């Protein structure tokens, strides 16, 4: 079973503390050594991005930062696990890393199974 994990948080959490980077790098290494982490990347701030939308028949592009959004995707991971609970446990650990290393941080991981046919 493959899951896409979307790491979400408010950009108002501020700069990522170095300890979070370190812990995330260790987590990443562990996941790859364990064979569960297939792919993972962090995303640059939304100021470097854009949103292209279709509304009322009009397609338009708006440059970042996405100031109205409460939570933004800050990174993703594709994991391959044997059960949904494994995916949840991996998500819990991700939040634990933030809890331990980033006082006041608030965010979430959206865990979605990837469709396979």
């Amino acid at each position: 079973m493959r899951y896409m994990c979307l790491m979400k948080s408010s950009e108002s959490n501020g700069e990522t503390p170095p300890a979070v980077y370190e812990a995330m790098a260790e987590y990443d290494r562990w996941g790859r050594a364990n064979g569960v982490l297939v792919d993972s990347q962090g995303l640059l701030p939304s100021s470097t991005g854009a949103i292209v939308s279709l509304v009322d028949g009009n397609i338009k592009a708006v440059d970042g930062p996405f100031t109205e959004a409460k939570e933004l995707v800050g990174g993703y991971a594709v994991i391959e696990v044997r059960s949904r609970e494994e995916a949840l446990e991996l998500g819990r650990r991700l939040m634990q890393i933030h809890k331990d290393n980033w006082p006041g941080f608030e965010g979430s991981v959206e865990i979605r199974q990837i469709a396979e046919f």
Partner: protein
Amino acid sequence: MSDETTHAAIEAVWRLESTRLIAALVRIVRDVALAEDLAQDAIVAALAQWPTTGIPDNPGAWLMTTAKRRAVDAFRRRARTDQTAAALARELSEAVDQDPAAGIDHVEDDVLRLMFICCHPALTPEAQTTLTLKLVAGLTTREIARAYLAPEATIAQRVSRAKRTLAEAGAAIEEPTGPERGERLETVLGVVYLLFNEGYSATQGDDWMRPALCDEAVRLGRILTALVPDDPEVHGLSALMELQSSRLAARVGTDGEPILLEAQDRGRWDAARIRRGLDALARADALRTAARSDAQAGPYALQAAIAAEHARAASVDDTDWDRIAELYEQLGHRTGSPVAEVNRAVALGRARGPAAGLALLDQLDDVPALRGYHLVPSVRGDLYERDGRGVEAAAEFERAAAMTANERERQLLLRRAEAARRRAAD
């Protein structure tokens, strides 16, 4: 959190932690059976406590500490009669008191050592694969039994017999170094690939394949690339399994019947696995040529290169069959395997017409290793069929059908025989 959820969550933790837990415990207690028992004790303790306390922040460290405390107890009990155990008990008890979470370092070394142990030469291939599934992949006896369609008792027996053999061989104490390490690594790769193949084309029974075994083998291959990152064949094997397994969903029909490569819907090939496979193959090639620019590719990298040709091609006709024939030739030289020659006959038949394939196949008639192997008549049938010799093709397919032990494959071959006969009559 309901009890049921917690149990499932604890099972998930076990899946994620058991390999490292058992591997570290083997290093500490130098006894595979004891290490597994201690790990089991720890998970039993977790099942008793976590439903009320919740899962600890660092469940891996919790399990490790609990297992180590049990180890101290076990050694203390033995210490009455055994001086070594007394010393180990003291040492370990101090270590646990100082830093309960320690011992999660050198994990890579520990896991690799555990793989060496599970694939110890004193064990039969069957015992090697079973033990690898149990101790490295973290599958339960029941799951292994299901994967092999064997009674649970048979698997349990196989595991305990294997553990006895390991104890007698002193497998948990030795540390392979130098050329022996290379040989042992080769055995590990062989065991993982055997596991993969057992899943990819089940040799017996009703199933054409058992995807769970393939998935475990692919995962073990990924783990190995992290444990031994500088070995080209480790990446070659991982590439091979990622690429082959990218076709899992496409190679079986709705009724479980096999679908041959040429009839597969290539849109159903798993693009993520293909990408990982091609990446791993590139890594294998880079490592090989970095060591020596004219170094020959190993058997796994060669087979991965063949699989990569299929993965890159949009259709059977679009496939570079000349290149595939060349790769099979290299593989045959490298391994001395006549099966590589049979496959080269297939590729030649595609690249230069059925006659070229049949000419090579004729040369293989007297190879003893191929006698009784269903692949030969099945390939011959295929070449005859495309040469317009339907009656002869049918006879070959029937011969092949009588030779295979896999029921799905037998049915497929009989269907092909029937179709060839029908076309010949038209």
